């Protein structure tokens, strides 16, 4: 109570001015959004082709008809990216550790790590899926997988492990070398320093970009369909081909969004938390 008595007129005046400014800003934002989005909607809805597009892309009956099958296919996507994500996390970390190691003895392996990243990050994912999906079975070697789902998963793992390795590496490099010195000074080995001091800090810093790569991976699972597996996109495409209606593709798109958007929100939150730290 004593404090409120101390609030000066000057302060009240300044706060009122700030509130006026904020209100004006909000008003401008609302009006401009309505104008732009409304204009865009009006432009599309009044286009000559809209009635046809509405029927071929947004047909409710087609949606209801296709959705169960597309959803069933989507479970395959979910299974693939769950397995691939775990494999990518482990493999990416291994490559990053090899690439950041300075031990002269592992020079050849370090070279291999560099080649791995250059190669698998540099080749389009779809090409990699084709090459592995058709190339590996053609070798006719016993013990190698021949199932398209597995081969596609391997191709995605190769590609994304190269990206993720670089994300990890950036994180490891961002931890100041004095932390490594301090870890050695308390008597830890290089490996223990990595495990208990460097990596915990590094992973925290790159958690958001790592999840960002996973958002990307969850969509790219659809590319596996090019070598056969009936996942959501492929099934949607088949139904679309039968009925000459694109609505099943919209159903598939919604399913991908259902997993990528929540993950994107998690990424946002982590980015925010990181900024506060």
């Amino acid at each position, binding site marked *: 109570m004593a404090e409120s008595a101390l609030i000066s007129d000057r302060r009240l005046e300044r706060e009122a001015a700030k509130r006026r400014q904020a209100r004006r800003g909000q008003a401008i934002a609302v009006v401009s959004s309505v104008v732009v989005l409304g204009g865009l909607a009006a432009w599309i809805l009044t286009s000559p082709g809209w009635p046809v597009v509405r029927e071929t892309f947004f047909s409710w009956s087609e949606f209801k008809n296709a959705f169960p099958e597309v959803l069933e296919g989507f479970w395959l996507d979910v299974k693939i990216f769950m397995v691939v994500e775990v494999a990518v996390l482990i493999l990416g970390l291994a490559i990053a550790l090899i690439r950041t190691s300075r031990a002269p003895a592992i020079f050849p392996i370090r070279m291999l790590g560099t080649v791995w990243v250059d190669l698998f990050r540099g080749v389009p994912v779809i090409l990699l899926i084709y090459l592995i999906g058709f190339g590996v079975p053609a070798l006719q070697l016993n013990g190698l997988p021949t199932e398209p789902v597995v081969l596609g998963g391997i191709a995605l793992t190769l590609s994304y492990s190269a990206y993720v390795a670089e994300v990890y590496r950036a994180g490891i490099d961002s931890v100041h070398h*004095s*932390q490594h010195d301090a*870890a*050695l*000074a*308390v*008597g*830890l080995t290089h490996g223990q320093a990595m495990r*208990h001091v460097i990596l915990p800090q590094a992973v925290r810093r790159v958690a958001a970009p790592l999840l960002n790569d996973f958002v990307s991976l969850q969509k790219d699972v659809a590319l596996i369909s090019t070598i056969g597996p009936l996942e959501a996109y492929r099934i949607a495409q088949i139904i679309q081909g039968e009925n000459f209606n694109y609505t099943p593709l919209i159903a598939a798109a919604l399913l991908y969004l259902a997993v990528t958007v929540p993950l994107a929100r998690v990424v946002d939150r982590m980015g925010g938390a990181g900024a506060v730290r």
Partner: protein
Amino acid sequence: MSAAAPVLEVRGVTKAFGTRQVLRGIDMTVDEHRAVALIGASGSGKSTLLRCIDLLEEIDDGDVFLDGEVITDPAVKPVEIRRRLGLVFQAYNLFPHLTALQNVVLGDRRAHGFSKAEAEERGRVLLARFGLEGREHDRPDNLSGGQQQRVAIARAFSGRPRALLLDEVTSALDPELVGEVLAAVRDLKAEGMTMVIATHEMSFAREVADEVAFLHEGRIVESGPPERVLEQPQRPETRRFLSRLLEAGRI
């Protein structure tokens, strides 16, 4: 005291970073329970010498002995040596993702083989000893500079090192926090800890050190009891250094 065996011996140590010669032949002996203060201008090689002793830098020539055993031999495992020494850094270098207690406990658990319970008990006792009771679960960014440096001293001391190396442990602190850190060092000295203390605090060097060594351009140009080196310096380099500190109001 003088009959005690040397804990640390530095013999003819040289070290260059590229073309920059930082240490040009250092000889130094630190007997058990004794404290040697390294003084000298920034860049005179104090930190490098401490890092060389803790095997964080590889020396070019000479040798370092710990308890009479050569430690600068390629056959010696640096990890084993570092477990017998403690090093406190100028910038604390605490592990920011760990609490004060976890910082102290990490070495005991992973390098010295204590169980979690044992290590934590020891860590708690040590933190309390340095006036950090109740701060065990704070992370470094919630501690003041003085508190962080005391955690760092506890961390370096927790492995019961044969010698403690202190690298300008008060240089990064606000003036009003220097005292609490120096008190911790004084406490360890009273317990008989063998120490090498690189410092800019001349009054502290005089109080705690048994010997002061003045480093100039990679050489120890003068050493001896603190009263003699600080009050009746024999060498012109030492006199110049001390008079500059006097002008800056640091003595």
